[in-house]
């Protein structure tokens, strides 16, 4: 199968079940809302070392937020409810509470709750105020720039993490340019985030390592500098491989994002020096969700 003359490998991306939540952050203007989001999702690329995978889902106009100010929505994905709750509280406490003019609200409804302002309120040292408005509970915490407003809790849901595809190209610049186009297309879609830097990961991993302490290590089959000494998946013309990882609230969201991303990455055709599109397939060892490239791009 080819897209604009670029071969799409007959393989599948292997993803796994996660727990997710969404919060909304507003601020005095869009810049400061994004600043809070960037800060709280900055060190949130992989659960391997960050505890949670997170990213900004969308920018919100003032009329789409609870307090009528510009904002963003952030999605956070964890491997367990406990870890997700811990990371949410730490990140909102350290990165949003501290960020000038921000407020934080639930971005998801449901019966399964995660504390949001519920514990952060104690920063108010007794001066905090509870307000129930329209059946929802909020906390007003006095801070030096006024009041930090935080909704009591948000909801969580089951989700999917680790949807991915690989762009194989003749140069780093060619791989990156194709990935940038893919990221731009994927970020327009709801319910997904691309947790890695700029949406792109250059250190795609395999499950396990020769070192017992490591649960993941470099994926030598896709390392161009090891082409001659490993069971390489790369042809001789490939000099750079980059991966886009996508987490979504449902498998359908991931499939839609992969489809948009792969189409965008292949838009330049062979002239863009993209050689092939593949995916992180771990032989079924990693997760129960399999996204076949031929099916999602069809």
């Amino acid at each position: 199968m080819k897209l604009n003359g670029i071969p799409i490998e007959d393989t599948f991306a292997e993803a796994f079940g996660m727990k997710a939540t969404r919060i909304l952050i507003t601020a005095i203007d869009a810049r400061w809302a994004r600043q809070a989001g960037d800060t709280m999702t900055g060190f949130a690329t992989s659960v391997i070392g960050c505890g949670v995978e997170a990213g900004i889902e969308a920018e919100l106009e003032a009329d789409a937020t609870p307090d009528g100010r510009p904002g963003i929505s952030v999605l956070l994905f964890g491997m367990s409810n406990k870890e997700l709750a811990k990371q949410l509280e730490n990140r909102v406490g350290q990165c949003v509470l501290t960020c000038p003019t921000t407020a934080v609200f639930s971005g998801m409804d449901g019966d399964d709750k995660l504390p949001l302002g519920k514990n952060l309120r104690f920063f108010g040292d007794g001066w905090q105020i509870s307000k129930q408005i329209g059946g929802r509970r909020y906390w007003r915490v006095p801070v030096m720039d006024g009041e930090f407003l935080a909704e009591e809790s948000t909801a969580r849901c089951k989700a999917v993490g680790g949807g991915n595809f690989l762009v194989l190209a003749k140069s780093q610049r060619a791989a990156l340019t194709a990935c940038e186009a893919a990221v731009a297309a994927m970020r327009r879609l709801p319910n997904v985030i691309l947790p890695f830097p700029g949406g792109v990961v250059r250190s795609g991993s395999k499950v396990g390592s020769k070192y017992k302490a490591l649960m993941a290590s470099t994926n030598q089959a896709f390392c161009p500098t090891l082409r001659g000494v490993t069971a390489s998946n790369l042809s001789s013309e490939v000099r750079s491989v980059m991966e886009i990882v996508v987490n979504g609230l449902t498998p359908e969201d991931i499939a839609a994002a992969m489809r948009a991303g792969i189409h965008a990455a292949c838009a330049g055709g062979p002239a863009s020096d993209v050689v092939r599109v593949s995916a992180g397939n771990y032989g079924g060892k990693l997760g129960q969700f399999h996204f076949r490239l031929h099916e999602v791009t069809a």
Partner: protein
Amino acid sequence: MKQLTLTQRHATAQRLDMRSFLPEHLAQLSLAQIAELPLQVGNQTTPASELFELSGTPCEDLRLVPAADNLDFIGAGMRQGELTVVGNAGDAVGQGMRGGLLRVEGNTGDEAGTGLSGGELRITGNTGERLGGPSVGATQGMSGGQIQVQGSARDRVGERMRRGLILIQGDAGSWCGVNMIAGTIVVQGHIGAMAGSGMRRGTLLLSGPPAALPSTFSDNGVHDLNFLHLLFAHLKAVTDLGPWTAADNPSVHRYLGDLADAGMGEILWPAASADVDAPTSNPR
């Protein structure tokens, strides 16, 4: 649409206790059973059918048409359904209400919504004293839900209120929010003396500066309070916000008190409105 209507045949000299005529109870009964429900009139017990004309079908949408304003405890303890009073209600309408919607298309007596913990009470006319306060003998007033009065309320609105929202589109009498524990009271008209006296926590939101405040409230300046956006968005659905220019400028004067108690109660009014002198203090 199914509805059950009880129309009072004639006014009685004695007050009637209507607390057993709740939508959720009557929906379980036949018209014949409802007609036999006992009502106490003075020292006599009378079947409901002698005092009320019944029409419609028993369901959780109940309409009550009083012939006088001495029907007390209408909707008291109500948990669900809708009850509409077409006319004036007596005392303690919606007392101890836990859910559902209770509308009074007229005025009410005293103690409306006392001890209310859920649901919504809407009064199109005026109401008497102790709106949303504690039921007789109780230590706390309203603890949830919402009360809307389109007219005015007399003294002691929200006394010892703990949670919930009271909206008064007209004026409120003296001692509004007295000994308030928490919750929110919004008064769009004028407010009487000693507002917020004894307040521990909670919010008293006014449309303009009060003529006087207890001397135990202190000025905390003018502030933009983000939560007001949420409150205004909620209130916009039921009232014209008038002097509040909600989304544009929620700057408010913030007075905190009562410093003779916990001192965390706040009295707010728009900074734009009559930004003149600080209110004078009431003597204590």
